[in-house]
C-alpha cells in the first residue's frame, strides 16, 4: 500500500513537471518580447538590452526553463510585464484572500452536502428527496456566473438589497475584515459544489442502507437514529471523501469566474486581468499554482481512496 501511495506521489510530481513544461512552451510561442512588453513606451535600445540581460532572455531556452523552474521552487516568479514589479509581490496577499474564500466555501458546503445527501437518501422517493435531487440537478448545470448574477440580482440590487455585490476592502486591509462582502462569493461557490457532494452522498448512503450490516443492526433492534449515525454514515463517508476532494480541486479553477464577478481581490481575478493584459509571467505563475493545487488535492483524494478502500489496498485495479 505504501508503495502504491509512493508511486502515485511520483506520478503527481512528474505530471506537475510536464504541466510546467507545457506552460513554459506555450508562453514561448507568444509573439513579441517580454522585455519590450515591460518597458513599453519607455523602451530604448540600451534599456531593452539591459532588461533582456537581467531577465536572461539571451540564454538558451532549456536554461531559461530550468531557471524559471528553480525560481518557482523558491517562490521567485519573475517580473510582471504590466506592472513592472515582481510577480511575488503582486500575488502574495491575493493567494491568502483566495484561500479564505475557498476555505469558507468548503467549511460550509461539505457538511451541508453530507447532510442533504443523507436526508435525501433516508427519504428516498418522498417529496423531500425529490426537491433536493431536483435542485441539485438544476444547480449542477448552471455556470458559476449565472448563479452569481442571480444572487446579486436578488440580494444586492432588486429584491432584498442587503448584501454588497462587490468586494471592496480599502486597500491595505484584509478582505475578511468585511465579512458581509464575503457572503455572496462564498455562497456562490457553496451552491456550485454542494450539489455534487449531496448527490454522491445520497448514492453511497442508499447503497449502505441496503447493505447487510445495516439490516443486521436493524434486526438487532438498534434504534434507527443510532443505526444511521453509528453504522451507515461512517461507511458512506469514504467514497464521498473522494468526491469532496475533486470538488475542492474544481474550486481552484471555478474561483476564477466567481472572483471576477464579485471583484474579489484573489488570484482568480489576477489571472483574468493578466490574460487581458497579456501579462505572461503572471499567467504562467498562476496556471502553475492552480495546477499544483489541483494535483495535490487529487493526490490527496487518491490517497484517501487507497487508504479507505479495502479492494484497492491489495493494489489490484487502476
Amino acid at each position, binding site marked *: 500500500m505504501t508503495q502504491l501511495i509512493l508511486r502515485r506521489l511520483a506520478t503527481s510530481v512528474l505530471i506537475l513537471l510536464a504541466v510546467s513544461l507545457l506552460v513554459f512552451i506555450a508562453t514561448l510561442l507568444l509573439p513579441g518580447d517580454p522585455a*519590450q512588453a515591460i518597458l513599453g513606451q519607455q523602451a530604448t535600445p540600451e534599456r531593452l538590452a539591459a532588461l533582456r540581460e537581467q531577465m536572461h532572455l539571451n540564454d538558451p531556452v532549456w536554461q531559461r526553463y530550468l531557471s524559471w523552474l528553480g525560481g518557482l521552487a523558491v517562490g521567485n516568479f519573475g517580473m510582471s510585464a504590466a506592472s513592472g*514589479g515582481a510577480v511575488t509581490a503582486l500575488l502574495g496577499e491575493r493567494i491568502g484572500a483566495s484561500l479564505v474564500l475557498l476555505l469558507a466555501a468548503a467549511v460550509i458546503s461539505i457538511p451541508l452536502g453530507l447532510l442533504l445527501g443523507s436526508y435525501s437518501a433516508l427519504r428516498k422517493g418522498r417529496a423531500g428527496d425529490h426537491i433536493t435531487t431536483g435542485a441539485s440537478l438544476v444547480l449542477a448545470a448552471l455556470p458559476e456566473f449565472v448563479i452569481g448574477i442571480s444572487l446579486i440580482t436578488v440580494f444586492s440590487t432588486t429584491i432584498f438589497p442587503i448584501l454588497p455585490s462587490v468586494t*471592496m476592502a480599502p486597500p491595505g486591509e484584509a478582505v475578511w475584515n468585511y465579512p458581509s462582502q464575503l457572503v455572496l462569493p462564498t455562497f456562490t461557490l457553496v451552491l456550485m459544489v454542494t450539489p455534487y457532494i449531496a448527490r454522491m452522498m445520497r448514492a453511497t448512503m442508499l447503497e449502505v442502507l441496503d447493505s447487510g450490516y445495516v439490516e443486521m443492526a436493524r434486526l438487532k433492534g438498534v434504534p434507527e437514529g443510532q443505526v444511521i449515525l453509528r453504522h451507515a454514515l461512517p461507511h458512506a463517508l469514504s467514497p464521498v471523501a473522494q468526491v469532496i476532494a475533486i470538488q475542492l480541486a474544481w474550486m481552484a479553477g471555478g474561483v476564477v469566474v466567481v472572483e471576477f464577478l464579485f471583484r474579489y481581490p484573489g488570484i482568480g481575478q489576477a489571472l483574468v486581468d493578466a490574460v487581458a493584459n497579456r501579462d505572461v509571467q503572471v499567467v504562467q505563475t498562476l496556471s502553475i499554482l492552480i495546477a499544483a493545487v489541483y494535483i495535490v488535492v487529487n493526490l490527496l483524494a487518491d490517497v484517501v481512496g487507497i487508504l479507505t478502500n479495502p479492494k484497492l489496498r491489495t493494489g489490484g485495479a487502476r
Partner: protein
Amino acid sequence: MGLSGGGAADSLDAHSPVSTTDIARVLNLYEGLLYRDENYKLQPLLATRATPSPDAKVWTVDLRTDVKFHDGRRMTGRDVAATFKRITDPKSPKTGASSLAILDKVVVLDDFKVEFRLNTPTATFDDSLGQYSLGIVPEDYDPARPIGTGPFKYSSFSPGRSSLFVRNHKYWRNNEPYLDELEILNFNDNDALINALLSTQVDAIGQIPLALLEVIDADPRISILNSETGMWMPFSMRVDRPPFNDNRVRQAFRLVVDREQMIEQVLSGNGRVGNDLYSPFDPGFASHLPQRVQNIQKAKELLAQAGYPNGLSVELVTAPIQAGAVEAAQVFAEQAAAAGIKVKLRKVDTTTFFGDGYLTWDFAQSFWYSRNFLPQVNNSSLTTSPFNETHWNHPEFARLVAKANVTVDAKERNKLISQAQEIEYNEGGYIIWGHPNQADAYQQYVAGLVPSRTGLALSGFEFRRVWLGETK
C-alpha cells in the same frame, strides 16, 4: 478620495507619474513653477512670473520667496536648477524630459531668480513649465523621502493600494489646505469605485463611467462634477499608407461620422462635438472653421473619386485604452457602413495596442489629455514627434508650427496656429469626433470642488481647496 487606475508600478517620484493616482499624488505633494488652472489658463504657482527674451531663447523666472519645503527649508533657485537637472538627466530621463529637449541649462541668478537657456527659440516655453510632472524638489531629493512644497505631506504609501498624506502646516497659501488628512485609494474597477462612494467609504471619486452619470446623480446624497475638457479620443489614419494616403479617403472617413450620435452613444451625451481639431482651449484655436457634419453622399462621392466606387474594407485596431474607446470603434463601424465602408474591428489588449505595433497601425484609435496646440503638435504631429500616430508629414504645416514656436507676440502666434489647424482640418489624419467630459462624483458634504477643463479628475486634483461641510 477614491480613484480608479494605478497598479503595483505606482510611485511617489515627483517626475515620473504614470497612472491617474500617481498624478493625483504628485500634484498634492509637489508643485511646479506654473500650472494650468481649472479654466486651462496658465497661472503662476511657485514662480511669480516667467518672461521670455525678445528672441525667445532665454526665459527668466522669478520665484516666490515665501515657499518652504515639507522639512522647513526654504525653496531657492538652486532647488529649481537641481530639479530640472534631475528631470533631463540623460542617463535616466523622466516623464517631462521629452518636452524639455529644447532646454540647454538652468542658470541660477540669485536665490529667487533663475534663467532657462534654450537651444531653440520657444515662445511657449511657459506652457512646458506648466506640466504636472515638473514639481520642484530640494537639491538632495530622494523619492524614498518624498519632500516637496505641496499642500500635503507624505505619511504612508503602499503601491497599487493607497497613500496617506497629512496637512502641510507650513504651506505658503494662507489657511490652505483645509483638510487635515488626504487619503488616496486605488480602485481597479468601476463597480468598486461607485460602491465605495455610495456606501460613504470614500468622500469623492474620480472618473465615473459617463453611462451611469444620471443614475448616480439621482442619489440625493451625491453631487456630480461634470467638466468639459479638451481631451480627445480620435481615430488615427496613417497618411502614408493606402487607402489613407489619399486625402479624399481621409475626408470621406471624416464625413461618415455622425458626431452627435457618437457623443450620444459613446458618452451618453456628455461631451462636446469635435471638428477634427485638437486643442480647443488654445487661444489660437481655429474656431472660424465650419463644424463638420455627417454627409454620406459627399463621402461616397469622394470615395468613388478615390477609386472606391463600391466602398472599401478596412481594419480598425481598437483596445480598451480609455473608457468608451472600444464603444466608439463599434459606433464608427456602424456609421461607416452607410457609406459602403466595411470596418472590421480588431480588438487587442492595451498592452498589445501600445506594444510593438503602436505607431504602425494603419487605422486605430488614440487618447490624449487637454493640451495646447504647440505642445500637442510636438507630441503627435511632426516627423520628430515621439507619437506621430498618423505619420503626418506636411512641410507647410511644419513651417507654420516652427514659426509659431518662435513668435513671442501672442496675436501673431495665434494667427499662425489657426493657419496650421486649417491644414489639418483639410488634410489631417485624425478623426476627432468629440471631446468627452470628465465626470466625478462626491458626497454632498464635500465642498470646494469646481469643474476643471484640464481633464484631470476632481478639480485637477487640487485638494488644497477642498473642505468638508457638516457630516450627515
